[in-house]
């Protein structure tokens, strides 16, 4: 074998090996949780001697589970709506237009992404405590929603901005020439064109909010979501209901990613660009 071939082989082994290793690394804790969710035993020890659905039953019977689930869903839904709406406006302003103070606008909308979440949560909690003492309210799910919107909007904005970047603006001009008003142009032309980006931003936002721990933990007061419910549970000692809960919370992520993939393929097919993975 020539030196050149050997070099190529070694490089391939390194590259494919690293991808395989990192994928295994990412799925070690996930697989562990799924396997443990089916144990019969009260103690989480390996190897598992007998399997059952017992802990799923215990989870559904737990009275803290259902409020946490509905809180998580409400928080993720409302945050997603706001983050996506703000993201659409922000992305168009970032990419399509030039205006005074645009640099300041860009810096402001990007900055929350660069903050460790715990610190973002802490500084907002200080402010909500002050506001709460003036206006007589205490941290709740609603303050957590504000926190999530501040944290998630930059992510949504970036995803939509990528879509806006490849935008054909002659279509907007054509609609305007045909007599459409600004709002009509946006609704009939702009929005459908950037829709795939909007959908993925929405999905991404929902999952970021659904699995968020730090900001919820800081800002939700006594309201519990699934991540803070789990955190307070495992701080006391590991109960077998948490692997079952984990396995259930993986489901929406799986569903939404499948949905995102469907939209991506459809958008790619519509633009007649061959889908890369096939």
């Amino acid at each position, binding site marked *: 074998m020539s030196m*050149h071939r050997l*070099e*190529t082989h070694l*490089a*391939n082994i*390194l*590259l*494919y090996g*690293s*991808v395989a290793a*990192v994928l295994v690394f*990412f799925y070690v*804790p*996930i697989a562990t*949780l799924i396997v*443990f969710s089916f144990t019969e035993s009260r*103690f989480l*020890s*390996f190897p598992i001697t007998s399997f059952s659905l017992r802990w799923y039953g215990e989870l559904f019977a737990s009275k803290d589970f259902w409020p946490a689930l509905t809180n998580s869903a409400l928080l993720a839904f409302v945050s997603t709506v706001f983050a996506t709406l703000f993201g*659409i*406006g*922000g992305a168009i*302003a970032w990419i*399509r*237009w*030039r*205006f005074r103070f645009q640099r300041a*606008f860009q810096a*402001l909308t990007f*900055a929350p992404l660069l*903050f*460790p979440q*715990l*610190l973002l949560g*802490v*500084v907002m*909690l*200080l*402010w909500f405590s*002050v506001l709460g003492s003036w206006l007589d309210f205490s941290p709740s799910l609603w303050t957590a929603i*504000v*926190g999530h919107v501040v944290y998630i909007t930059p992510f949504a904005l970036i995803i939509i901005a990528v879509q806006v*970047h490849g935008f054909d*603006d002659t279509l907007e001009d054509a609609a305007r020439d045909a007599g459409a008003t600004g709002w009509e142009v*946006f609704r009939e032309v702009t929005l459908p064109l950037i829709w795939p980006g909007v959908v993925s931003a929405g999905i*991404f936002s929902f*999952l970021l909010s659904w*699995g968020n*721990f*730090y900001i919820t933990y800081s800002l939700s007061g006594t309201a519990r979501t699934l*991540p803070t419910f*789990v*955190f307070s549970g*495992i701080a006391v000692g590991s109960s077998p209901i*948490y*692997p079952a809960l*984990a396995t259930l919370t993986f489901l929406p*992520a799986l569903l939404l*990613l499948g949905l995102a993939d469907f939209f991506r393929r459809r958008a790619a097919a519509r633009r007649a660009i061959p889908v890369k*993975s096939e």
Partner: protein
Amino acid sequence: MEVKPRSWRDRGLQAATLPLTTVLMVFFLVPLGLTAVLSFQSTRYYRLVWTWDLDTWVDVFTHVHYWSIMAQTITMAAACVALCIALGLPVAYAMAHRVSTLEHHITVLIVFAFLTDAVLKTFGWVLFLDRSGVLNGALDAVGLGPAATDILFTPSATLLGMVYNLLPYTIFTIYLSLVRIDRDLVLAAYDAGASKTRTFLEVTLPLARPGIFAGGVLVFVLSLGVFLEPKVMGGGTSPMAAELIRQSFETRVNWPLGAALTLVVITIGAGTLGLAALVLMRLSGRREATR
């Protein structure tokens, strides 16, 4: 695409930017300002007193305890950055240039792992690494003795958890810089007789440097605020800045101290970002000059 100048009197511009700007000013900039103001106050008997002095700051800068935790945090963050780049670079390179048929599936797998609940995944690691966990169970089964590994509740476990949760950020930023590289430059190097290794080191790597750099900086800044991994996987044996901050708010009810410590961490993060922006500008400036 044409970029259109707009005036602030434009209704569309107002609708697109003002709600977001208002929310961020009221709930992001004002809290930061408030944090700065609070760091100049004091507490007596667990109550906030408006004093406007430097006592809290003197406290922060004279206590060795705070310094050692800050040093520990920065060391862990730096180690996390090094590991994330070492692991992320080959994966990003493979995704950009090798596994083209599987690229999308790999991306989905990584995104899925990234987007699932971090608390649960960290708990999953505890179950995996625990004395009676999966790893020891498997090692025991192949005859390596019970409790062969004992890394849970050590700083190494904390670091493992941090790398686990932050690695996707490096993979995606490096990947973005790698796919943008002009393929012709790489082919030109091959034509000129350069080997694959040499082409990688002298063409691809320098062109990907901004992405590697950006990924590293992002991971560093985010590492400064981790709290879950030291608590759950490190077992509280190696306290980091975030735990210190949380304690000063919750256990000691000392808001000025918590605010000052928060500002110290934010300043380290922002300082790193500023420095990184300067270096990046120098890097791209040099490339313009040699073109």
